[in-house]
């Protein structure tokens, strides 16, 4: 397998996952806003924080209004991380690797890309947005389905899986980070009580984790238990431990490389040993930073081992 092709498949996985997560996060955020008290000064800015896109956003917009933020994240081609940019990057990659991925995937991705281009503008308004985002999520899930069930699970496929899992782990950390920062600092403890769990539920919903969390945890939604689920659960596909475990399962199928194993093991240990009771009170942001550095190290190690030959 050529390094360039492996590199492309890895990024193909990342871009698809990025587009899907972005669609979910935007969708859930609107729902969260409906449930919050009017006095909460809580707008659309945190969404830009999740994707670490403040600089890019401020370059082109001067207000964190719903329309601006939604446009920037969904259909602004100037934003490298927007849904339309991610789909376009995935599509450009597929053009050069079309001998490795079946033609149907190309057709479906093309469909989706043109849909986003044609309908994106109307989805800036609330009434059409839900349908638009659902179609994107469904479309990407369909592509995954086709990849998993029709593509040979050869070396190239393993790179796609590594990219997918690493991107998911990264997205999960971002969502935890922004959603869990204290949104309600302006409210008194008394006023806060009815809404305390809403923010944690929205963390779960951003990751379609609410139902699975309920099945696994069976206690009311608390900060520590949500963190435990999203960081350490071995069975939920968007938890960080699950994603790292899957990368680790994949490694024996590739040419052996100690540096990647070490980077994965170190990050897994970090996540596994976390004191969640304490983190749900304070220090979560710093901890999430540490995980992201660990994920960055895995990415670097993969690049160095296989792509920069």
């Amino acid at each position, binding site marked *: *397998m*050529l*390094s*360039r092709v*492996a590199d492309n498949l890895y990024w193909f996985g990342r871009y698809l996952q990025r587009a899907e997560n972005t669609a979910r996060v935007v969708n859930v955020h609107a729902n969260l806003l409906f449930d919050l008290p009017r006095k909460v000064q809580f707008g659309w800015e945190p969404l830009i924080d999740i994707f670490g896109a403040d600089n890019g956003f401020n370059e082109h917009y001067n207000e964190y209004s719903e329309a601006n933020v939604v446009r920037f994240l969904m259909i602004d081609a100037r934003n490298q991380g927007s849904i339309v940019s991610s789909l376009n990057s995935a599509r450009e990659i597929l*053009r*050069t690797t*079309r*001998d490795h991925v079946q*033609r149907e995937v190309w057709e479906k991705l093309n469909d989706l890309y043109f849909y986003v281009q044609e309908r994106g503008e109307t989805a800036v308004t609330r009434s059409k947005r839900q349908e638009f985002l659902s179609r994107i999520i469904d479309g990407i899930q369909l592509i995954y389905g086709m990849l998993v069930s029709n593509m040979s699970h050869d*070396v190239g496929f393993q*790179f796609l899986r590594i990219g997918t899992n690493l991107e998911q782990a990264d997205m999960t950390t971002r969502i935890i980070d922004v959603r869990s920062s204290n949104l309600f600092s302006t409210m008194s403890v008394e006023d806060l009580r009815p809404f305390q769990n809403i923010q944690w539920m929205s963390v779960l919903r951003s990751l379609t984790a609410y139902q699975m969390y309920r099945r696994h945890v069976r206690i009311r939604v608390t900060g520590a238990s949500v963190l435990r689920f999203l960081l350490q659960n071995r069975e939920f596909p968007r938890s960080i431990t699950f994603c790292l475990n899957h990368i680790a399962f994949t490694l024996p199928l*590739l*040419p052996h490389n100690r540096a990647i194993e070490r980077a994965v093991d170190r990050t897994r240990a970090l996540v596994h040993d976390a004191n969640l009771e304490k983190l749900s009170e304070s220090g979560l942001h710093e901890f999430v930073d540490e995980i992201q550095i660990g994920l960055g190290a895995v990415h670097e190690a993969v690049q160095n*081992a*296989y*792509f920069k*030959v």
Partner: protein
Amino acid sequence: MAIDWQQYRCEEYHDELFQAAALPRAAAKQLTDYLDSLSTADLAERRLAAELAIKVMGVTFTVYSEGRNVDRAWPFDIIPRVIDRREWEKTEAGLKQRVAALNLFIQDLYGDQKIIKDKVFPAEVLADSVNFRPQCKGMTPPNGIWAHICGSDLVRGGDGTIYVLEDNLRVPSGVSYMLENRLVTKRVFPELFETTNILPVDDYPTQLFDMLAAMSPRPGDDPNIVLLTPGIYNSAYFEHCYLAQQMGIELVEGPDLTVGDDDCVYMRTIYGPRRVDVIYRRIDDLFLDPEAFNPDSVLGVKGLMRAWLKGKVALVNAPGAGVADDKVVYTFVPAMIKYYLGEEAILPNVPSFLCMDPKQRKYVIEHLDELVVKPANESGGYGMLIGPRSTKAEREKFRKLIEANPRNYMAQPTLSLSTAPTITDDGIEPRHLDLRPFILSRGDSTYVTTGGLTRVAMVKNSLVVNSSQGGGSKDTWIVDLENDMDPKSLIQIQSQQKKKNGSAA
């Protein structure tokens, strides 16, 4: 009867399927009889089936215009072009002879230049050649083969003679369409393949692979062969993917390859560097190696020429082979055949006037309105003057161009290219066409495709067949009449066909 061949007006030019109105040539008779048996609705249905097959198979070519790169469906006419096997055998022999002489010529130019010393080929033509690569002087590639793959364009004139119009020795393209055209035709007219003895074309990828493998500098080993493409923005990218897939070799881009300190070429894989033995390159010479040629090239591989000159890697076609792919050099091919092989050319050239010769130049300038003027080194039909269709201003422009740089121009009489019946919006009409067969040379043997790619000018009276300029294509059948089936079986199949149609209606 849907098609009335009586109405088909083929008298003006030589027609590939008909010798006179409603009188098909022997090799085409089964085809035209069969087409006769189809209703208008049948024919429209087959045409639609072909369009669908092309879309589903993803046969595309890329056009640069319209502001960006667009993949367009391959334009295809379902009525095949038919050539009698006996005639084809002669053509095939002529092509082999021609390519043999061309390879000897290229080897000579980069060696002792005997042909110039013996005054058969003028030194000044070589001096002004833009495709001569001084870097190749003194080199002898494996088996002395420079032009491993040659795509020669053939046309048939009004008298029925097949002429060679040009030889493409750099990176000739189109062979994937030849293969796909046959697959489409098999889907559209399966019945005809039961009854007519049509020689197969699908051997080409195997032949190509074997030829490439034979060029490996490490004989005996399982050679590592790659196809080097300029990337997705190249108009022939579809073909690059297609051939790489058909041969099961890696499709690589310049940055995938490096040349090591040992002067060997390596490709970057997830397993580490892997040595490459043979490169089927679809990049022009000047972009191959920034160290030897264009220093700005990002498509090529630094040090590739060094590796090739040391014999560590085979390049197909060899760098510098394009020196013989020049419309002025072309006029000397019959002389080369005589000089190197001591034979008369089996396939004639189109009669040509060289503008570098003062007498011929004078004639060309006086007859610009009758001639086709071509620059020595353009391809794809660009930069030509078609005299009879030109304006006065265009002729004036070419007069100046020729006088400024006579070596760069040659002229030919406007050919009355042969035609074949083609489905148009106004029914079945004759359209002009050419033929591009591909010749593979490995030194110990030469292979010629069975037929080749027939390109057809879809616009009425047009002579321009290039797909980038509105041309289409047809499947090309080499039909063997001597080993033919009993004609009765065809009639049986036809009557079954009619019965089926009858019961359906």
